[in-house]
């Protein structure tokens, strides 16, 4: 039976950490958006699979500094997850090549964290931990 701790959130958003650290497992990286995606890819190679899409939100990788992705452990490498994360990394590199992240004000940083948090909340809300929810 899936436990709430079985949900792993990889994130660089401390608001996600604060909200969910007592409920789910958090791997917090105080690093860049791209580095979070790479950490997610590493996890997928260790047989974790994606539960949320790594490119959630219309904010481009050269706009928002924050990224949170939800995964869970499985027995085998999930190739669909690998494909999604490789696409996400390639897309991030494409955008960052043309324009780098602006130096955001404190208010903007807070707003980006709010949006990233809302993607996680929207995904997790009302999701039971019934095993059926993991099967993709």
């Amino acid at each position, binding site marked *: 039976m899936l436990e709430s701790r079985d949900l792993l959130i990889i994130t660089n958003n401390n608001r996600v950490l604060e909200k969910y650290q007592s409920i789910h497992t958090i791997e917090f990286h105080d690093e860049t958006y791209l580095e979070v995606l790479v950490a997610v890819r590493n996890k997928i190679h260790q047989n974790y699979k994606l539960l949320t*899409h790594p490119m959630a*939100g*219309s904010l481009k990788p050269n706009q928002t500094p924050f990224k949170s992705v939800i995964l869970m452990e499985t027995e085998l490498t999930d190739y669909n997850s690998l494909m999604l994360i490789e696409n996400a990394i390639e*897309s991030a590199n494409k955008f960052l090549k043309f324009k780098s992240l*602006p130096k955001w004000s404190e208010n903007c940083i807070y*707003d980006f964290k709010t*949006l990233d948090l809302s993607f996680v909340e929207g*995904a997790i809300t009302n999701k039971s931990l019934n095993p059926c929810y993991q099967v993709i």
Partner: protein
Amino acid sequence: MKLELGKIKITDVQFGAETKVENGTLYVNQEEITNMVLEDKRLIKAEVDLARPGESVRIAPVKDVIEPRVKVSGEGKIFPGVINKVKTVGEGRTHALVGANVITCGKIVGFQEGLIDMSGPTAKYTPFSKTNNVCVVIEGKEGIETHEYEEAGRLAGLKVATYIGEAGRNVEPDEVVVYETKPLLEQANMYPELPKIGYVHMLQSQGLLHDTYYYGVDAKVMVPTIMYPTEIMDGAIVSGNCVAPCDKVTTFHHLNNPVITDMYARHGKTLNFMGVILTNENVWLMDKERSSDMTAKLCKQMGLDGVIITEEGYGNPDTDLMMNCQKISKAGVDVVLITDEFPGRDGKSQSVADTVPEANALVSCGNGNIIEHFPPMDKVIGTLDYIETMIGGYEGSLKEDGSIEAEIQIIIASTIANGYNKLAAKGY
């Protein structure tokens, strides 16, 4: 369902003592609008300004654009479940003030984005440079939580559009267009020799500033469903999406969905337009599986020969687009996609974030990465404070003289992925 859409052509907008339409001019009572918006105590400012085609005016940052409409007869009222009581709409008669729009602007978040130039070389990229706009610049109270402010802003625009729409109730329209879709079996039997075509309309549903509402229901918690095409014309779908200006589907674009309009133009001639399937673009991967499975199932169940699919957004929604494309194709239904592209400024990078082998018929709405020069405008409605941090802008974008150099993805609806624009792409 049969809807008569009465189009009242608006050619000018002015402030007046009474909100009314007279000889093609829309008059609006500035004070009534301000008071109405400020009834919501979450907002502390609501400045109303006007912007007309050809004026040297820049509007930024834009939240939503809404065409004023009013239901003259038939069940329900405009924006059911959001502004008016929930009731199924799409029948009877509705009047639209065509050529007028309500535009909400003001920051919801620090990087709030999207601009509209009413004249100059970049006006051509947005349809709103050609409409007479009632701009409502809003500001939230100190410390207001972002979700609250977003909702207040969204409702403000819809309220004002509903109020202004009333001015069209007793005006004789310049043109009446009749749209009709019969119940499925009747519709199929009406043109048995024509291909049965449906429209899969994907609604943005990822979270804050990325939401869409169907009869007031957040698309995030919907499962795919069937809609009569005329329901959208009465505001059954409203936008809560105000990120990524170039391909954000404003409420105007829902009301005036170009795929629906164009399908009706061909209905009974080259195709049998069977109806619309609504689906969403969630972040949770299992939701994507469920939604794409169900969408494919509905296409098959409706007996469709082919569908057009449109999406809203980039990245995560591209995965939904491709899942829908693949599953619908495998169900034996032909698929054509309409979407915009982000292949970089040289056009050489991968255009969409995801792809499947079945995606072999696609109509492009243009490249959002192209750089344009925006000359300075005499007047700014809203503020230019956020230009450099808007999607498409960058450090040094905003020059001292007020001109801007930025990617066209900074312009509202420039590459909108449902095709309501004039950009395209060619293969060589």
